[in-house]
């Protein structure tokens, strides 16, 4: 089983970095969204640095959702999904491996790009560190929750928008704890660790339960 899933993981990463893959697209989208914000908000550096963590988080959330709609749909379109489902391995693990490969290919680059974009929105070094830390533990939750939406909309032609509508409300807790931990790092009396640990908890929880939900949706997708 390990061999099968490591093969799947390697294949996902390869597909993500080759032409037409999602890896670069996510980062570029993230870059675009975040760099548009200062134009809208104006040259108020204080305001920018105050809402900076929120901008980065919203950017990361949208970039994750953007690339997620193809997670299972591209497999269904060319008939691969049927064959993956006919494997002798649990579909829950299949979803987990695909989601994690997706995170490594598109979520992790967002975390790594965050420091550069943090400068765009006038973040202090310590705030940049905090945003990176919260994105690092928070984006797996976004990917996992998004995988449920991707599995539910797998048979719909234009499922991307529906995916966002379904998934965005579910990501609100992650967003709240992620942004509050990142801002808490620079505003004095509020503690960083409490919301950060909540964020870790949310991430672990969604990595366990989202594959179960998404697998249930995929099993029903054959019709």
């Amino acid at each position: 089983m390990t061999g099968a899933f490591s093969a799947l993981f390697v294949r996902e990463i390869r597909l993500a970095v080759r032409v037409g893959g999602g890896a670069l697209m996510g980062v570029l989208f993230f870059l675009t969204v975040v760099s548009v914000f200062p134009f809208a908000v104006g040259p108020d550096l204080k305001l920018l640095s105050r809402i900076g963590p929120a901008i980065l988080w919203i950017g990361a959330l949208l970039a994750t959702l953007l690339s997620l709609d193809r997670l299972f749909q591209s497999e269904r379109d060319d008939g691969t999904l049927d064959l993956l489902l006919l494997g002798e391995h649990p579909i829950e693990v299949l979803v987990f491996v695909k989601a994690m490969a997706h995170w490594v290919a598109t979520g992790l680059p967002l975390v790594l790009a965050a420091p550069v974009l943090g400068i765009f929105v006038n973040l202090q070094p310590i705030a940049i560190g905090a945003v990176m830390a919260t994105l690092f533990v928070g984006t797996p939750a976004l990917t996992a929750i998004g995988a449920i939406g991707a599995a539910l909309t797998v048979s719909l032609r234009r499922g991307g928008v529906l995916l966002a509508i379904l998934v965005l409300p579910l990501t609100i807790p992650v967003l709240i704890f992620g942004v509050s931990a990142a801002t808490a790092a620079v505003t004095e009396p509020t503690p960083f660790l409490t919301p950060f640990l909540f964020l870790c908890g949310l991430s672990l929880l969604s990595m366990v339960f989202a594959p179960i939900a998404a697998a249930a949706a995929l099993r029903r997708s054959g019709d």
Partner: protein
Amino acid sequence: MGDLAIEGRGLVCDRGGRRVFAGVDFDVSAGEALVVTGPNGAGKSSLLRTIAGLIELADGTLELTGGDPELPLGAHCHYFGHENALKTQLTVRENLEFWHRYYGDCGVSVLEALDRVGIGHLDHLPAAVLSAGQRRRLALARLVVSHRPVWLLDEPTAALDVASEVRLGELMSAHLLADGLIIAVTHGSLPLAETKSLKLGEARVA
């Protein structure tokens, strides 16, 4: 695995609220090939997908004897559908290597399998540049590279030239000799000597 057999009794399939077929009975056992024929829309492909477990059975029983009791019927099957399940960004070899590792090894290497379907010389090319027939052959190599006792073939000869059809016939005969079992949907004739047949639309084993 000598006594492997699949028995379907009174199979009913509904798709999208419409009854596709009802009362389909069939028996296939190791070393036998069942050819499913019938007009367009008679539910031939739906029958294959139902056997694989990709579509839920609305009624009837579908039993596998002599297989691994811990695995569902679908995990005994190679499903060879209309789609070739290829990733055009990956090379021919990478495509097959993935299925080799995902479905498990059976002693046939990736290159050997590619040779057996006649595209061994294309192994380093991206699958995007293959012709329709070559893609079909690459998909066929998947059946060779991992062993599964039941082959569910949906229009296996589509897009294949005469030489490849002969090759497909050889692969199928070898699979049957090794106590495999084949259920194939086709409009034409299969390159096999002896087959059982099931006509959908009339739904009885002749």
